Structure formats: C-alpha cells, structure tokens
C-alpha cells in the first residue's frame, strides 16, 4: 500500500493504552485457521489479545498502542495469509444481539418452569387413578402455581408486549389470542386451585410459552446470522477514499469516514466514494451503477456526481456534499418514500390467519359458555369449559406454522447464496407472477468483459493481458482477466488516458487507443462495445470490450419463463444497448431509456392489472422501483441505497440464485399453507371435545405438543436444495430459443 490507511474510526481505545478493533476476515474455512490466526497474531509484538469468532468470521483484536498500530494488525494478518477488513459494529446488529439474549433468557425460564410443573402435573395425573389425597393434589397445584405464575410473567413478555402494541395500534396479530389464552388459563387454574378443583392448566400455559419461544428464538438466530453475513460483506466491499488534509496532503481513509465538505482526489479507474461536486479536472464518468446508462458522461468542474460511478480517463478533485444537494438523489428519495408507504399495506400470511383466527376462536369460546348456561350448567362449569376451549385452541401450531417454515427456507436460500432481509419475503416471492429485470449490472455483469477473446491469437492475447495488468484503466481490467501468468511485465509504463507500453521479447508492445498504438482506427463496431488496440512487433489486434451477460442468465430466464413467470426488462440504458440483451435472453417485453419515475409508473401499471412483480435491480435509479415491487432482489454489487431496499441480496456472479429462490419460496409457501391446514384440522378434532367439556390437562398437553411437533417436522421439508423437478426440466428443454417475436 503506497499510502497508509487511516483506520482511527474503527478503533476504540481504553484508558490503559490498549486499543480494540473488530475485523471481518476473508477465507476462514477450518479449525486450522483459528489456530493460525490467533497464535500468529499473539506472536506479533504489541498484540495483547486476539479472539476469532468462527460463526461470524470476525476477529476481535486488542493491542498496546505504544507498540503496535491498526495498520500493523492488518499487515500481520496479511502475512499470515488472510485478508481482513476493519469493521464497525452496526447499532442494529447489537440491538438484535441484545434481543436474542433476552429471548434466550425467556426460553430458559419457560423451559425450567415447564419441566418442573410437568413433574408435578404428571404426579397429579397418575394420582387421579391412584390414591392421591385431595390435600396432596392441592399442594401440587399450589406449587405449580408458584412456579408457573412468575415464570409466565417473565417468559411471556415478548408476546404480551407485542399483543399490547398491536391492540394499541388498533390491529390484531397472533400474539393477541396467545396472550389472552395464557392469561385466562393461568387465572382459571388459580381460581380452580383455590376451590380445591381436580384440574389445573398451569402446565398447558407454560408449555405453550416454551414451544412458542423455541420458534421465536430460532427465527431470531437465523435472522442474526444473515445479518452478520451481510455486515461482513459490507465491510469487505467498503471503499477507500483519498482525502486532502489541511496541509493539502493526501490521506487514505475508509469511505464511511467521509464528511460533507471533505476534498477528495479520484484517480482514473477508481470509484467515486461519496456524492459530491467536481471542483477540478475533467474525466469520462461511467454512471452505470447510478443510472443504468452504459455510455460514459464527460464531467467538468461544477458537475454533480454520485457515489458508485467510476472515473475513466482523468484525475478529478471532488468536494463531498450532503446527499440533499443532488437532484437525482432527491428524486430517488421522494419516490422511495411513496413506494415504502405503499408496500407496508401488504398483509402477511400469518397476520391474515390471525385476523381470521382470533374472532372465530373467541366467538366459539363465548358460544360454549352460553350454550352450557342454556343447557343448565352452573356459571362456574360453563366458564371453565369456555376457557378450556381457549386453551385447546391456543394457536401453538398456528403460531409455529409459518415461522418454522421461514427458518428452514431461509437456511435453504442461504445455501443457494441468497441472503433474505425481510422475514415475509419468502411468502411474497412465492406469489409473484412477473419478473422485472434491470439490465446494467443485473442481467449483465457489473464490469465489462472481453467479447472477442476467441478470435485473438492466444500468444497475442496473453501478451496483451499481461501488459494490461500494469494499467489502472477499467477497460484494461477486462483484458487483464485473460492473463494466464499473473505477473506484469518489467518496465511497463502507463500513460494516463492513452495506454500502456513495455518491451516484450525485444519488441515494443503497446496497449491502448489506436492513436497510441500507431495503428489505423478500426471500423466502428456496434454501439455497446469499446475497442482497445494491441500492437506488438508489427502485429495488431483489436480487443473489443463490452458488457457481458451474467453466467447462467439465459438458462435462468428460460427456466423462469418455464415455471410460468412473465419476464420484462426495464432499463435506464439506451434502447440500442438494451435490445441485444433482451434478444439474447428471449425476453420480448423490454423498455429502455427509463427514468426512476418511469420505472415506478410501469410497475404501478402492472400492479393495477393484478400483477405481482419481482423486481431485480442494482442501480441507484432502481431503488424506488425495488421498494414499489411486490418483492425485490439485488445483486451484492448493487449501490448501497438500492441494497437497503431489496428484500433479498444474491451473492456471486451467476443469476441462477434467482431461479432457486423462486423454487424454494414456492415450496415454502406450499408448506406454510399445508401447516395452516394441519392446524385447522387439529382444531376441528380438538374443539368439539373441548366444547363437550371433555378436555383434561393431560389431553391439552398431549394435543398441544403433538400438533406443534407435526407442524415443525413438516416445516423441515422446506430444507434441501430446490431440485429441478422433471416437469421443469422438460419445460426447459422445450423452451425454444428462436420464438417468433409478436
């Protein structure tokens, strides 16, 4: 590294002169890595403590400031053989960790209480047929109450709080019937115990809480894991910026440390680390991550530029401005606000079930009470039977039905390299009937690729590629990928904005513009491609660099169409750049040259005609469209604002995770519905028994745990990769590429 990176924003300092930093570490695979990193760091002078968290792939390092520096720690790791990226723990992540610990505490208390109350309850149940005296039974019931009441008051908090919040907002959710059921069961049992009655339902209430907390803790653990992975990925791709300090010297800082008013130097080939205004220099700017446009824009001092753009030809000085300065950002933000508000109206499957369930159950319980009163039972007996109905219908299975599938399905998605941000994304994804792709960076790779590698003599290509290793130009990177031997030539000289030259095998070789190579300009190719010339020993080749499709894009498009989805392309790029991509993929509905607002308008039109749209995009201009769609994906290379709006992020270059996601989501949704029906079936059998007054605590316990276990086991079927079923495979075969365009 030519300039030392200023890492002070990641370091926390203690009073005794030690400093602490957290790092996301790349490439940890096995037990050996833990030992290598920890013992390697401990042998480095000045490092007091190093602890690797293998689950999160994170490293916490403490060192003595006098002997070691943050940069030194990263260099030491580099020597051991690992890339590490400093990491600032997010507020949301530590909040989530605290919440997870709280849930685990509740779970532990509920588990302890359930075990001990059950110990007493089983004794009472076996005593019914034996010789247990009434005094002993009362003692056991009082003991159960002494355990269950405080335990439920503590462990029930997650449900009580959520139910209270929902009721105060005038809504109802699954936690409302749960809370009512638990409170009534405990209250009734207490009264019954005081009246020396035969049955008390303390065990049912506390066991219900235990099962539900299991589901909730599991759900939380999965979410926390995906969040940790997402946090690491953010740290890995974090940009650095070259900032001028007060004396006009350049300091390399993480992009996250930039403030409004900072002056930055952006060299050719680098990404713009923050929104700002050009104050000196000119360059060609590739704004494909911002607008989707692949043609480059010439910028001069005074121009507004956006984070994520790439500077091509010249070095520029940029003043960082607050996001509010940019007209594009303003528009995106305004559209986003509207779209997010519209999206919150989508009702989740679980809430729909709860909205239907709670009134039915409560009405049944009330009718039971009245029915028994009319039939001549005492008020006490009628109320006890009514509460028994509430206990037996307490939606244990129903509350587990959906989260259990969600947990298992997000695990399956995770293995398919998809990170789900929103819990209900899976059920929304299963409901889509149309897929809208952005073009640039979504269907195509974010970086350009060499298009005519096959036509170039292999020795010339190898020379050109190795020469390209010495260039900073973004187009050269596409050529450099083809170098088999990844060592640059000695003495290679880059002339900024023109090309690179070196002496290879005694002859001069030049890579760059035709003018630089002393060759006649090649015939203008198609619009989307840029030409680079390579000259060596009197031979010339033209290297054509252009946007390339993501691997698997064509197969994915075909398979998505085969499973019954309508495919569309909405791109901000020019029509002539969109058309070849649409044709290559066989997508006949496409639009180009769209502004962010146009994309929203088209999505609204689709929505109005009853379509449920999956939007996949990466650019800043796609962010409002992602928020407006029924469900949305973005690739990991997407702009930050865009990724924040996406319901899921897919990793890696291939587009195939999108297909996996749709298949996994559909299967998960089918299992969710199946689970809901299992819960309904359970109620159809159990409720008549309860109405008839035949429910004892023993039956309640068996029915509740039985139904919960069945639902959970059924959810496990969402595991495993989406194996292409024979029908789909046949459909993919049959999808003929040369369909006639209507």
């Amino acid at each position: 590294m030519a300039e030392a990176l200023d890492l002070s924003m990641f370091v926390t300092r203690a009073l005794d002169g030690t400093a602490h930093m957290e790092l996301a570490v790349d490439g940890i695979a096995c037990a050996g890595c833990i030992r290598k990193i920890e013992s390697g760091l401990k042998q480095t002078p000045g490092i007091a403590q190093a602890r690797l968290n293998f689950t999160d792939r994170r490293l916490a390092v403490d060192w003595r400031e006098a002997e070691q520096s943050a940069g030194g720690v990263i260099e030491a790791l580099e020597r051991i053989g690992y890339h590490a990226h400093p990491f600032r723990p997010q507020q949301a992540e530590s909040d989530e960790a605290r919440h997870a610990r709280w849930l685990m505490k509740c779970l532990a208390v509920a588990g302890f209480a359930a075990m001990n109350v059950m110990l007493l309850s089983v004794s009472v149940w076996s005593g019914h047929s034996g010789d247990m005296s009434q005094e002993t039974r009362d003692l056991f019931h009082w003991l159960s109450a002494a355990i269950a009441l405080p335990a439920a008051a503590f462990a029930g908090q997650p449900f009580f709080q959520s139910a209270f919040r929902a009721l105060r907002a005038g809504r109802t959710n699954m936690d409302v019937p749960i809370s009512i059921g638990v409170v009534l069961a405990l209250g009734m049992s207490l009264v019954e115990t005081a009246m020396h009655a035969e049955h008390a339902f303390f065990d049912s209430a506390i066991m219900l809480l235990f099962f539900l907390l299991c589901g909730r803790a599991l759900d939380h653990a999965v979410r926390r894991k995906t969040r940790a992975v997402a946090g690491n990925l953010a740290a890995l791709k974090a940009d650095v910026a070259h900032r001028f300090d007060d004396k006009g010297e350049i300091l390399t800082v993480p992009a996250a440390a930039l403030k409004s008013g900072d002056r930055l130097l952006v060299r050719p080939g680098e990404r713009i680390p923050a929104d700002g205004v050009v104050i000196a220099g000119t360059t060609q700017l590739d704004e494909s991550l911002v607008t989707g446009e692949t043609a480059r824009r010439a910028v001069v001092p005074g121009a507004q530029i956006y984070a994520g753009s790439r500077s091509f030809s010249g070095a520029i000085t940029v003043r960082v401005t607050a996001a509010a300065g940019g007209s594009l950002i303003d528009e995106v933000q305004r559209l986003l606000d509207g779209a997010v508000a519209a999206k919150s109206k989508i009702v989740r499957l679980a809430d729909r079930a709860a909205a239907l369930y709670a009134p039915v159950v409560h009405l049944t319980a009330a009718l039971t009470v009245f029915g028994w009163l009319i039939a001549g039972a005492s008020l006490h007996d009628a109320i006890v039977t009514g509460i028994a109905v509430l206990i037996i219908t307490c939606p244990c299975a129903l509350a587990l039905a959906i989260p259990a599938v969600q947990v298992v399905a997000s695990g399956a998605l995770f293995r398919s390299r998809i990170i789900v941000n929103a819990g209900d994304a899976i059920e929304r994804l299963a409901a889509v009937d149309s897929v809208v792709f952005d073009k640039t960076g979504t269907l195509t790779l974010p970086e350009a690729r060499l298009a005519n590698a096959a036509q170039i003599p292999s020795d010339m290509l190898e020379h050109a590629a190795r020469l390209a290793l010495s260039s900073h130009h973004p187009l050269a990177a596409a050529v450099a990928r083809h170098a088999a031997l990844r060592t640059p030539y000695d003495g290679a000289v880059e002339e900024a904005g023109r090309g690179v030259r070196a002496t290879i095998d005694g002859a001069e070789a030049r890579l760059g513009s035709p003018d630089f190579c002393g060759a006649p300009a090649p015939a203008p190719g198609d619009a989307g491609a840029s030409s680079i010339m390579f000259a060596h020993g009197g031979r010339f080749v033209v290297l054509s660099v252009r946007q390339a499709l993501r691997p698997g894009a064509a197969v994915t498009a075909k398979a998505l169409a085969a499973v019954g989805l309508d495919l569309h392309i909405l791109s901000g790029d020019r029509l002539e750049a969109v058309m070849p991509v649409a044709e290559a993929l066989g997508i006949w509905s496409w639009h180009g040259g769209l502004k962010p607002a146009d994309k929203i308008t088209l999505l609204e039109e689709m929505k109005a005609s009853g379509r449920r749209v999956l939007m996949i995009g990466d650019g800043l201009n796609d962010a409002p469209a992602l928020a407006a769609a029924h469900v949305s994906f973005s690739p990991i290379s997407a702009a930050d604002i865009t990724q924040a709006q996406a319901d899921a992020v897919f990793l890696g270059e291939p587009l195939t995770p999108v297909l996996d996601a749709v298949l996994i989501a559909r299967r998960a949704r089918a299992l969710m519905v199946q689970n809901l029906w299992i819960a309904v079936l359970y109620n159809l059998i159990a409720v008549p028994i309860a109405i008839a007054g035949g429910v004892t605590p023993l039956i309640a316990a068996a029915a509740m745990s039985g139904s919960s276990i069945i639902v959970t086991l059924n959810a496990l079927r969402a595991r495993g990769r989406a194996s292409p079923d024979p029908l789909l495979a046949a459909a993919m075969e049959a999808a003929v590429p040369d369909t006639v365009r209507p």
Partner: protein
Amino acid sequence: MNVLVYLVPMALALGLTGLAAFLWSMRAGQYDDLEGAAMRVLSDDDVDWVNATGRPNLPRRDTEHEQLLAK
C-alpha cells in the same frame, strides 16, 4: 407422603441450578461462537508438551491421520 418435604425442594433446587448455570454461561458468551467452539476442541495448543522432568512429552503418532494423508 413425608418424603415430599425434601424431594420437591430438591427437584426445584436442581432445576434452578440448571437455569442459573445456563444464564451464567450465556452471559459469559459461551453461545456466541458455537461453530468455533466445536473447532477449538480439536486444537492442541493448550497441551504442554514438556513434562515435569524436563523431557519432552512426545505426542503419540497419529497413524490414522498419516494414513489419510498418504491416500
């Protein structure tokens, strides 16, 4: 039934001990890195290879591992 006088408190005390142990281990961060804990078990770093007499405590040959490597 007099046996209940000490059996029930004992059962409760055992349960509470388990609960306390769980809460303590959670607070101590033992559940923060479950995968790592499974890996660390394999590491021999905490074994002192020198015995009291000052002679090296040579590890036994891991023939199973050597066979695996040879394959």
